[in-house]
């Protein structure tokens, strides 16, 4: 379970994420939607403990990612936007390294390795050098890396980007299988992906959450696309209105 509470992140004057809150339950897949630059990656980086928030907290299975960081990080498998591969290592050596970093017990490393190679369809690639893999296979190695310690929480930043349609289909199937009793958060800007595999959707625009809803409870008849467009345009209007109001206030003062 992931609880994000009132998260705000500012880079200097630029506020990337404003007061974002949502909840991802165990055994479900949460789709994190938003246009480019909406703050998806920033939010995920904060959830995984890569960087701290300016304000707000994140609880991973009840552990605070800031104050109980090591314990919380142990529970997370994370696939960043770019798969974090050491390009001159071989796939197998790389995954062993990650397994050790993620403190998989020595005796279990081999079986964990075999398992992720199997589920990510990398059996024939185990001895290849990461830098020589195609984008799609790099993405799979990235996913294998996130899964190797069998984490209860999975955070995937655009897991299907750069894959061909068949691979996209496979990876989606894989994520669906994986969810089981795990908490999965995946970010994307591909809408059908969300309607196909997610249980819940959170839409973020300009750093704010504009919608948090179970897919089942979305009004029937409207497509996710309509809802998405309505949600982000509504946001734009709100911001525009707020700015106008501010200007009026400013004008009144002068």
């Amino acid at each position: 379970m992931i609880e994000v509470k009132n998260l705000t992140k500012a880079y200097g004057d630029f506020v990337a994420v404003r007061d974002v809150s949502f909840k991802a339950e165990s055994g479900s897949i949460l789709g994190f939607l938003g246009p480019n630059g909406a703050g998806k990656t920033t939010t995920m980086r904060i959830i995984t403990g890569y960087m701290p928030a300016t304000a707000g907290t994140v609880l991973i299975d009840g552990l605070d990612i800031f104050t109980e960081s090591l314990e919380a990080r142990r529970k997370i498998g994370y696939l960043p936007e770019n798969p974090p591969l050491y390009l001159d290592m071989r796939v197998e050596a790389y995954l062993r390294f990650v397994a050790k970093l993620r403190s998989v017990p020595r005796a279990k490393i081999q079986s964990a390795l075999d398992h992720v190679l199997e589920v990510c369809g990398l059996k024939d690639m185990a001895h290849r050098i990461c830098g020589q893999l195609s984008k799609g296979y790099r993405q799979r190695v990235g996913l294998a890396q996130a899964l190797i310690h069998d984490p209860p929480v999975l955070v995937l930043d655009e897991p299907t980007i750069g894959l061909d349609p068949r691979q996209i289909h496979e990876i989606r199937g894989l994520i669906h299988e994986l969810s089981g009793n795990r908490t999965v958060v995946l970010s994307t800007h591909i809408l059908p992906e969300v309607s196909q595999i997610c249980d819940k959707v959170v839409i973020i625009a300009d750093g704010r959450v504009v919608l948090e809803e179970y897919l089942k409870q979305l009004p029937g008849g409207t497509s996710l696309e309509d809802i998405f467009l309505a949600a982000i345009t509504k946001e734009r209007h709100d911001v525009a209105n707020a700015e106008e109001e501010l200007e009026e206030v400013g004008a009144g003062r002068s």
Partner: protein
Amino acid sequence: MKNSLTIAGKELAGYFLQPVAYVVMTVFLLLGGFFFFALLRYFEVMLTAYSAMQNPTVLQRLNLNERVIEPMLHNLAVVLVILVPAITMRSFAEEKRTGTYELLLTAPIRTGEIVAGKFIAAAAFMLIMIALAGIFPLILVMFGNPEVGAMFSGYLGLAFLAVSFVSIGLFTSSLTQNQIIAAISCFGALLFLFVISWPAQAGGTQFLGLLRYMSLPEHFSQMVTGIIDTRDIVYFVSLIFVALFLTQRSVESARWR
């Protein structure tokens, strides 16, 4: 500690997955061999000349330690100033550029463990390289009669010097994601520590004394002449600790930006 060793193992193996390690070792050993040959040759010429002159006092003073090993170690120290940045520049800068930094910083390990792991790997690499250069004194022992203790002390000095260089290199690499900037700022810092005592050459005030204390060659040459003084060791060890501490702070601070 276990995490540090995991990282150190990966880093050390990583050096040899790239040609850089081989190039650095080859350059170091080739130049070392050349210095050794040139100095030994000069030593031999002098020996023949003074023997012909039948000058026993001068002959007495000619020795392998002073004439061959000492100048060779000083030259190798200068070579290290150039080679160490080439080894350490990747350590953090590359991880930041390729995004693997995200893997390290979201893994359940402390930043101190990451820094320690990278330090152990780079230091081990330097020690292997310096140990290989141990072939030169070995040749002298086989064919001549040098002072083994003094040579050992000199090599120990070179090892301390190299490890201090490494810790400074890690620090500059942690500041940037550009390897060239990491290498050049490391090179500048090392060179500066080499020449920092120049204003103090004539002796003088306390400030100049401080500059002299901070100078690397000051402590290194003591050890090269065969004097292992705790003051010099304390200097090297504190330099290493300060540099690694700053590296740890710099890595940690990346989280807070």
